[in-house]
């Protein structure tokens, strides 16, 4: 009895600090923010009583001047830009991961590091880099003008194109790492067997490589799509008005107390969309993977 009491105290002492930090400084604040979505908007945009569903009506687009689709567009654009960026990341990450895994063992850590290191620099700095490259008058912008992509004397940002490039740049390493892990464990006998059966390169990939790398692909998609959907920095710096995403919409409601309840309602929408996205990916993973175990 005495021993188990001491044991409990020990457990409390080592688990409590971490658990307390997460509960007090993450769970409580999130619940507080979510609660705010069910209040009315006070005179200066701060939450006020009584409780109401006003913020959700506003989020759906109902305002003083009737219904407008602005917020809906922002949501759809977020989903579309996230999808596009994730698809491009997958296309670039597959050959990159395969390349690293096919090098001699001693080179692999260095090559992996080469992919990961740029993502260790602050995301604001990474965006500054693209702003430098896409500024008016740079060779890249001049080329874009030449082929008619952009107006003369204009840069390539702000634009949706710049946002997609920024998103792909930011999240590529999160896809390469899990895919590389999958390629490193690849059962080459299956690939050989497919080749011996005269499968085309596409068929080899489809039947022998893809199913084996699916768990890595799924893990990578979660690591890329969730933060991409909530992106704030890249869209704010490289996007301009026509490429903002739901994260920018939400954040704007909190700057200088514009409308906190509306922002909170937007945050709830973001969380629901994230959970929904995870659910869809899980279903997709199960369907594609058949009886293979897909960890999500």
């Amino acid at each position, binding site marked *: 009895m005495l021993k188990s009491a001491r044991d409990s105290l020990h457990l409390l002492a*080592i688990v409590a600090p*971490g*658990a307390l930090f*997460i509960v007090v400084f993450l769970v409580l604040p999130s619940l507080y923010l979510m609660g705010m979505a069910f209040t009315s908007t006070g005179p200066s945009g701060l939450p006020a009583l009584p409780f109401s569903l006003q913020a959700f009506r506003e989020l759906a687009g109902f305002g003083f001047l009737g219904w407008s689709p602005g917020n809906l567009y922002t949501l759809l654009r977020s989903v579309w830009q996230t999808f596009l960026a994730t698809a491009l990341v997958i296309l670039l990450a597959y050959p990159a991961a395969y390349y690293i895994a096919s090098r001699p063992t001693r080179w692999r850590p260095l090559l992996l590091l080469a992919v990961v290191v740029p993502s260790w*620099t602050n*995301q604001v700095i990474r965006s*500054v880099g693209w702003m430098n490259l896409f500024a008016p008058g740079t060779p890249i912008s001049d080329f874009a003008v030449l082929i008619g992509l952009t107006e003369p004397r204009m840069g390539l940002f702000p634009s949706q194109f710049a946002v997609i490039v920024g998103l792909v740049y930011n999240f590529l390493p999160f896809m390469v790492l899990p895919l590389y892990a999958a390629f490193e464990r690849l059962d080459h006998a299956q690939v050989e067997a497919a080749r011996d059966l005269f499968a085309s390169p596409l068929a080899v990939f489809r039947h022998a490589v893809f199913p084996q790398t699916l768990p890595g692909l799924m893990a990578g998609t979660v690591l890329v799509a969730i933060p991409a959907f909530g992106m704030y920095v890249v869209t704010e710096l490289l996007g301009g008005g026509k490429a903002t995403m739901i994260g920018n919409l939400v954040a704007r409601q909190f700057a200088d107390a514009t409308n906190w309840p509306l*922002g*909170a309602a937007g945050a709830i929408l973001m*969380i629901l969309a994230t959970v929904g996205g995870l659910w869809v990916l899980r279903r997709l993973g199960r369907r594609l993977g058949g009886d293979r175990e897909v960890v999500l």
Partner: protein
Amino acid sequence: MSATLERSLRAFWIVLMVFLYAPLAVVVFFSFNAINSSARFAGFSLRWYERLFSNEAILSALANTAILATTSTVLGVAIGLLLGYGLYRYRHRRLAWLIWLIYLPVIMPDIVFGLSEMTFFVTLDQRFGILSPGLGTMVIAHVTFQVPFVALLVHARLLSLDPQLFEACHDLYASPWQRARFFILPVLTPAIVASLLLALTLSIDDFVISFFTAGPDSTTLPIYIWSAIKKGVTPEVNAIATLMIVGVFLVALSSLVLQRRPDPSDPS
């Protein structure tokens, strides 16, 4: 592998490296530009660096960045280490809910995380006069997102160990202190080093959460760069960014050197 495939893979890799490093290279390159332009290079000059080191606001932002990163990393790794060990040691005690709790900051969009903390701290400050936004709240916020990552890393490392090692300690009558000193700490050293590097880079890479939990006197370098670009002041930005890029590359290099050291739990 066919020769064509190998050649196209190599070409692809080179293009990828250009894509990954061009934005950083251009920042470093134009930080030495004699004029304020990122389109035309008009000769080598250190003028932006001179301006940088005579700018009080930037120097205090540099100090804040260093304080925030080191304080939160030390606290975050210490607390996360305990939590990760606790999760392993008491895994029979139904701590599954805690694992879920740990995944929360990993899957929650950082903008929602940052805004939650901002509204929470602002309200606490207005109602009770405690935790007014500043370096203190930033350290708290950073520790909160570092702890789960560290705990997961340490937990995974302990799970990969042979459970018989723990029994062997017990059979040899090791006191809890001896067990910690001569067994747990040594086998966790690689995980601790990895945690320190991870927590440090998480802290330096974060902008969104810092931005929303910062106070008027706790500007960090990324926040300074952010407001400078927003105001349209760009010349020194390339120079500050270059210093941060150099810092990150030094950390990357040290991680490579540290990883080359043999693993103490590896018998070979």
